[in-house]
């Protein structure tokens, strides 16, 4: 006899959704693991080497800013570039028809997309930090608090990435949009440099991007540890996470598209 199965959002049910959706996402990269690792390694290594050639002898603070800036840049790449492009690609390939016809929450779908991105970004971040220390003789500060700050930094960008991915009319638009946004945020907002190095108007624009607070918190954590400034940035990132969750929950439709 056919009967409906109980899929109410209990803890066990949410865990099942997350773990299964993550396994589906993981399957996308498992066959190309070597290429993914290679690509994740080439980007930070070539960035660091070119920085060494260009700035051979420069101040300690500039090197820290550049290394941390590149780490945050890698997180941004994953946070909304890769996430936005991946969601958009899946949407335009018709994958949503499968996912949306199942009793699963879209926020879990987005989270597992993000987890996959995190998995492919981590090698890049670790190499950037380790090779940066070795090549530039910079000492970075590591502590357990770095883990929640890093996760918050990624989560705070999910709303932008998911929004772009779900709403874009076609994949080409998504690609242009995220690349333009990435360049603006990477080079014209306080990611690679301190806030006061930018013109006033760009400083103000920088306040609306979560990347500003992520870069600031990570820079502070990697140079001085958990300070009051980190706490303030963590609180602001938490607000961005809550806003992202609300945005995905209330504003993004995937079952009944217009």
């Amino acid at each position, binding site marked *: *006899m*056919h*009967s*409906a*199965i*109980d*899929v109410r959002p209990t803890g066990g*049910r949410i865990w*099942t*959704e997350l773990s*299964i*959706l993550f*396994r*589906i996402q993981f*399957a*996308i990269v*498992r*066959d190309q693991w070597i290429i993914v690792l290679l690509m994740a390694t080439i980007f930070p290594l070539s960035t660091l080497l070119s920085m060494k050639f260009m700035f051979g002898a420069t101040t300690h603070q500039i090197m820290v800013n550049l290394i941390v800036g590149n780490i945050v840049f890698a997180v941004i790449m994953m946070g909304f570039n890769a996430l936005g492009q991946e969601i958009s690609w*899946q949407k335009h*390939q*018709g*994958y949503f*028809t*499968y*996912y*949306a*016809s*199942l*009793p*699963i929450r879209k926020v879990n779908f987005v989270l597992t997309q993000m987890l996959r991105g995190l998995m492919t970004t981590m090698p890049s971040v670790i190499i950037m930090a380790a090779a940066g220390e070795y090549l530039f003789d910079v000492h970075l500060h590591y502590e357990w608090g770095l883990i929640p700050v890093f996760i918050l930094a990624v989560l705070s960008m999910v709303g932008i990435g998911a929004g772009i991915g779900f709403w874009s009319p076609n994949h080409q638009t998504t690609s242009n949009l995220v690349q333009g946004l990435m360049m603006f945020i990477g080079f014209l907002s306080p990611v690679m440099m301190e806030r006061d190095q930018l013109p006033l108007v760009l400083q103000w624009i920088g306040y609306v991007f979560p990347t500003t607070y992520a870069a600031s918190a990570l820079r502070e954590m990697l140079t001085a540890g958990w300070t009051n400034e980190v706490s303030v940035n963590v609180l602001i990132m938490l607000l961005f996470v809550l806003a992202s969750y609300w945005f995905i929950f209330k504003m993004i*439709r995937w*079952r*009944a*598209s*217009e």
Partner: protein
Amino acid sequence: MNLLEIDRVSKVYKRGKSPANMDISFSIREGEIIGLLGPNGAGKSTLVKQIVGLLAPSSGEVRYRGVNVLKQQRRVSSEISYYAQEPHALGVLTAGEALLYTGLLRGLPRREAEIQTRELLERFDMGDLINRPIKRMSGGQRRMIGMGTTLIGDAPVLVFDEPTNELDPLNRKLVWDLIVERNRRGATIMLVTHNVLEAERVVDRVAFVNHGQLLEIDSVAHLKQRVDGRLKLDLTAAYGEVERLIGRMEGWGDIQRTGEHRIRLYVNKERAGRLLDWMIHDNSLPIDEYAVYPPSLEDVYVYIDERKAGAAHA
């Protein structure tokens, strides 16, 4: 009891020149197999996506057990299992993973999901392909896995969009058998297809759709009564003589050109005897072959579509 009510549903895409569907109303009863039939581009897939809550109507609403599907999407997606032709999203998984994961996401306990996965693959004669990635399978095998992802979990309502496309005759038969079996076990089934001949054998009721409109909905028996007084003749003309054959057949009934040398003639039963007698005895008729058939559901569809088109033209 009506399980699903489609109430004056229309869909107009922002960039579309004409509506994808217009003012469609009908009901789906619990426990029946209903076929949504029509040619390619008729608006069937749009309608079915509106029914399962994947596409919002521009006006009107679809109710599942009395409540708008868009207001209970979680319930709808757990109780209505939708087959969307190919499991594109699962191409990177193995056949076993695709079915198992879908079963788990549908809420089955792991043990039950494993059992159903094995049973379905064995039923599809694909038990030895359990560890093969779907992307390395043939088109037909991929579609069978898509069918499996719809069947796993024993949802009370199953919606199939062109379930037999690209399948070989054995798998087509298997799919129809599975659909009938699930219906006997209590599932309500909606089929979307342009394969009228195959659907005819399993459906209880048929809804004909074309140009985004519902042309007719009724039981197969009632629909066939509409054309009960007609017979269908398929004629193959002698080489290069099809135009002359059409000319000779004018006045006997409705004529359709069905190929370079072929025509189809719908003729009233009471005139059919005289027509056949004339065809057999008049050696000047340029006919190579002919065959006579009783009316099928496909003929009903052609008849209704022509009448609607004629009415619109008038």
